[in-house]
């Protein structure tokens, strides 16, 4: 069955460093991959979408890579800040399909 794996262990980094989160998937060939941010007790917030024919996408301090051969996406936050502390969710989808498969997320803590 389709499976998304995100590191269940929290990631702790120092302010100013680059945070790198990993999303691996199996038994799926997604047309696109998304990253969302979720704060405790709140709904996820859409951050970035990258399509299967794109290798990299950037938005301000965020960078996403998508390797369909490795079946992996990396999500980078450069110059991280304590306000970046949250859970980050990876999500996959197919062209024209409504069903998006979400990972369980990785919790990021940025220490001042």
């Amino acid at each position, binding site marked *: 069955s389709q499976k998304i794996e995100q590191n269940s262990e929290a990631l702790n980094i120092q302010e100013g460093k680059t945070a790198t989160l990993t999303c691996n998937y199996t038994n799926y060939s997604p047309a696109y991959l998304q990253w969302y941010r979720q704060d405790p007790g709140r*709904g*996820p917030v859409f951050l970035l*979408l990258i399509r299967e024919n794109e290798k990299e996408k950037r938005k301000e301090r965020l960078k996403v890579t998508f390797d369909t051969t490795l079946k992996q996406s990396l999500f980078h936050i450069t110059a991280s800040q304590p306000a970046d502390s949250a859970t980050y969710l990876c999500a996959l989808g*197919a062209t*024209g399909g*409504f069903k*998006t498969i*979400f*990972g369980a997320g990785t919790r990021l803590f940025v220490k001042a």
Partner: protein
Amino acid sequence: SQTIHQWPATLVQPVGSPLSLECTVEGTSNPNLYWYRQAAGRGLQLLFYSVGIGQISSEVPQNLSASRPQDRQFILSSKKLLLSDSGFYLCAWSTPRDRGHEQYFGPGTRLTVT
């Protein structure tokens, strides 16, 4: 700008009682609408989606149902709640073109079935 509302924010219900959660979207027309459930430590599970009034697709067979009586209103219901229905329920919308992606989520409803 678009906004999405969900209520109530929290709900404690006994097993066997009915459920009605409501979601409304403002500032957009003919949105795709979604209901998800999030269990602790797990990914979001898509329950239902809708592309228009009265059009509901179910992703997971269960004792829940959904309805879309108006263009920007989406309701999640149950006739008899089970303990396993506890969780964080999220409503989301996307533009008609964005099927399943670039979704915008509401604040969620924390449901505890006792």
